[in-house]
């Protein structure tokens, strides 16, 4: 209860400060909108369905891109973790590639895939693939060896061994990497959408800019944050809680 009270006080204060600054009219309203204006923009956006469509399109893209990243990243990570040659050669490359912002792939993606959804997906994959790969590599190494041995001993091999033993055994060690991968995927998507006119939240945000409608820009920013927060809170926190319950871990992994 106390925590909720602190929450309310903090956000009420933030809103109050924002309203105060806006009402002082230091900047014209189209540059510095009021919370009320942003609220109206949000309402209007949902009312004419443009936000719903944008959310649906963006979510679809990020889910496809993220799914590709997770599958590819796990294969790559397992490969790097279990092969000395790959580890020595590709391991370093993967780490250094992580310093490259995924949007740098955009020009190449445009040339390779054309001005379409696939180019956006490529950027999303490049954004999150490395996090998942590195997490999987690390998880495979941190995972106690006895699980793999016990699995083989009980008759698991090949894909069954991966699916029923190695994957669940490494999950506590890769969940934070999966989470990071998701955050990168989401960011890469919005960036790519802002550069290329298409449906999606990034484009709706840029439309606000073109119309000089800062209320709409901030409204979409809030949406982007909210979706990121909800996915983190529902999907990943839920996953962590389940893992803690099963494995008997007390602290978050």
């Amino acid at each position: 209860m106390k925590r909720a009270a602190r929450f309310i006080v903090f956000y009420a204060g933030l809103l109050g400060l924002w309203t105060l600054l806006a009402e002082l009219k230091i900047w014209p309203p189209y540059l510095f909108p009021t919370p009320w204006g942003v609220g109206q923009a949000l309402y209007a956006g949902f009312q004419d369905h443009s936000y719903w469509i944008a959310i649906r399109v963006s979510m679809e893209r990020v889910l496809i891109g993220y799914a590709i990243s997770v599958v590819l990243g796990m294969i790559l990570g397992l490969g790097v973790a279990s092969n000395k040659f790959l580890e020595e050669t590709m391991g370093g490359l993967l780490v250094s590639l992580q310093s490259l912002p995924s949007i740098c792939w955009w020009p190449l993606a445009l040339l390779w895939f054309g001005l379409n959804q696939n180019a956006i997906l490529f950027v999303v994959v490049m954004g999150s693939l490395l996090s998942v790969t590195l997490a999987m590599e690390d998880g495979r190494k941190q995972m106690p060896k006895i699980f793999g041995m016990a699995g083989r001993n009980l008759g698991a091999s090949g894909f069954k061994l991966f699916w029923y033993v190695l994957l669940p055994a490494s999950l506590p060690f890769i969940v934070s990497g999966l989470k990071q991968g998701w955050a990168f995927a989401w960011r890469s998507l919005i960036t790519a959408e802002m550069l290329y006119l298409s449906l999606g939240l990034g484009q709706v945000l840029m439309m606000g800019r073109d119309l000089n409608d800062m209320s709409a820009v901030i409204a979409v920013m809030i949406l982007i944050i909210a979706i990121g927060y909800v996915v983190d809170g529902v999907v990943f926190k839920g996953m962590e809680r389940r893992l803690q319950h099963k494995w008997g871990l007390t602290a978050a992994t």
Partner: protein
Amino acid sequence: MSASAQNLSAQYPVPVEPPVIDPAVIDPRTPVRSGSTRGKLGPVSVGTPLLDAPPAIAKVGLDDICLSYKTESGERLLALDRINLEVKPGEFACIVGPSGCGKSTLLHLIAGLHQQTSGRILIDGKPVQGTGTDRILIFQEHGLFPWLTVGGNVEFGMKMKGLSKAEREEKTRYYLRLVHLGKFKDSYIHQLSGGMRQRVAIARALATEPDVLLMDEPFAALDAQTRDLLHDELERIWSETGRTIIFVTHNVREAIRLGDRVVLLSFRPGRVKSEFQIDLPRPRHLEDANVARVAREILGELREEINRSLEVEYNEGAKPHVEVGAEA
């Protein structure tokens, strides 16, 4: 209850209720013998006709097993040197030796988790390669899967074998009752005590219905009371199911308490130093005078090996202790 379910429960009777359990029902491959007469029989397979294997063929045969590996400094180390051993069907064989003699490694080789440098491992006289559910290893650190419930763990091997869900559930229930954990089917591993975990590991191993149970110091990490209890249970389960057991331990008394035979391995390279037939009547107890007497005899020989191992370790100084079993 459907007809098929009734049939299944008849096949897997609850161990606590009906007094007599026919091991052949659980696994027709294993010879039928009564648990009560087992201790008096001594070397059992001699002259005893078995169901489908001629008596001369050992359940597990080790034929000139050698294992050598490179240490980090690059030199080759001979860990196991020409191990020859035959374990009869239904026999409880214990392997003792000083730590580092390769006894756990040998068990990993039999389980197929590692590859020997040379020599053959025979099951029923046929050479085997790699892992197989005919021989299941029980680890010291139990190796249970924390992401599965107790029931899920016991079911695991059967799932890998492709057994139907109904069959798996029936057998899971049966084997959990066999180790007195019937009420813990839906618990997670971290909710159990050390002794309970080892019992789940035993149930999980038995559920795949292996001919051979390989046990790698399974009770070493448990307190004395729990260990005593599990000795009784293991002996009971062994006589009820008729499995062949190879049990590795560094505790000589434990070996005599449980084994039909105790095999002593030497230290580096691991060789079969001597074998002791234990013909003491069952059930035995760790504190029995007879057990202590035989233990003194074996300990005398083991002591030499332990001293040698200590000498080597002191002389080696900082040289890292490499255990093959921890490699892969």
